[in-house]
């Protein structure tokens, strides 16, 4: 990959589609599975993760020449943990209800592999502007992924979308979709779908070459 030629727009878009952290890199699975039982939870989780990702990438990139290599992981975790604490207090202040339903999973953003992964693989090697763009892209990709799970699970499991009933009163909810098992099934199905899309694109490309 030639870094000089990629514009910041490319860096942003890469996170959303080509290197989507959830569907392509299979990182940060725990929050993806745990909090996606409703659309509201998914959105809050997506925004909170994006916030932490952008802030920590900014600071990791800013301090990249100051942090000694031996203690870099520990320093990154410190930076991340600080912003997760900030995010947690903000969510608690804005909506106590959402804070309660997300529970420990807000604190658990600290151990989301996407954030540490981006800090180590991208932000620590690139200037501030690119690092922030990359973090924004990855955050958007993550939000897109949790949202696509949340929409399916709430729609099928509850018959609602962000609390608004979609189907008539005759709809029998698939309660398995809100339960833990459903999370695995929906994520598995999405991965399958993306595998199929990529497989198809590859075949089409081959056909063009031939």
């Amino acid at each position, binding site marked *: 990959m030639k870094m000089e030629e990629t514009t910041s727009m490319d860096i942003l878009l890469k996170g959303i589609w080509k290197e989507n952290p959830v569907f392509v890199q*299979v*990182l940060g*699975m*725990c*929050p993806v*599975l*745990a909090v996606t039982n409703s659309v509201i939870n998914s959105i809050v989780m997506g925004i909170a993760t994006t916030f932490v990702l952008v802030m920590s990438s900014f600071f990791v990139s800013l301090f990249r020449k100051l942090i000694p290599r031996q203690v870099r*992981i*520990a320093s990154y*975790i*410190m930076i991340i*943990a*600080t912003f*997760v*604490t900030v995010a*947690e*207090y903000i969510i608690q202040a804005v909506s106590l209800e959402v804070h309660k339903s997300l*529970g*420990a999973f807000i*604190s*658990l953003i*600290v*151990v*989301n*592999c996407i954030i*540490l992964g981006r800090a180590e693989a991208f932000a620590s090697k690139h200037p501030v502007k690119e690092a922030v763009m990359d973090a924004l892209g990855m955050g958007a990709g993550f939000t897109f992924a949790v949202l696509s799970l949340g929409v399916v699970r709430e729609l099928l499991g509850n018959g609602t979308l962000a609390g608004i009933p979609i189907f008539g009163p005759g709809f029998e909810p698939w309660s*398995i979709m809100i*339960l*833990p*098992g*459903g*999370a*695995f*099934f929906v*994520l*598995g*199905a999405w*991965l*399958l779908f993306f*595998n*199929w899309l990529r*497989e198809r694109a590859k075949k089409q490309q081959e056909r063009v070459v031939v």
Partner: protein
Amino acid sequence: MTGESLSFIFINAALINNFVLSSFLGICPFLGVSGKLKTAGPMGAAVTFVMFISSIFAYAIHQILLIIEAPYLQLISYIVVIASAVQLVEMFIKKFSPVLYRALGIYLPLITTNCAILGMALFQTNRGYDFIQSLIFSLGAGAGFSLALIIMAGIREALDLSDIPGLVKGTALTLMVAGILSMAFMGFAGLGG
């Protein structure tokens, strides 16, 4: 919630609300290391040990933070304790079993970012467990993690030998199997209550 009996805490953490299959904690190593039975066992043991140590320190830190009234330091101090415990286990395994050390590879230091451990430390604080309850809780959580990991490794070893369409292979299949396992674990609901 402090009135729970010790056996209930253990069964609850290990089976009813299994850490991996119904609380979704520790999914990364669950998907990563569950390929072979040989590494799944030691990995489970290492995680259980780190959980046990972290549980002791998390309890102590929580008491200190209560005294100095600095709850916002909770997350940062817990993660430091866990990282040091992982370092300890890593040195221990490297010294006593270099073969195992190589087999676990990158997943050993990654125990630090295993949400099961931080989750366990946060849960025991949130639920207000006393010292003994916290220890039992950490052991139950560790047992639950190991159980899920070993069952999954057994299934995946068998799956390797069967004829599967190429598109499904890999993570998608593992997730589907985990979903079925998770449904099976729902059968434990009400146990020990």
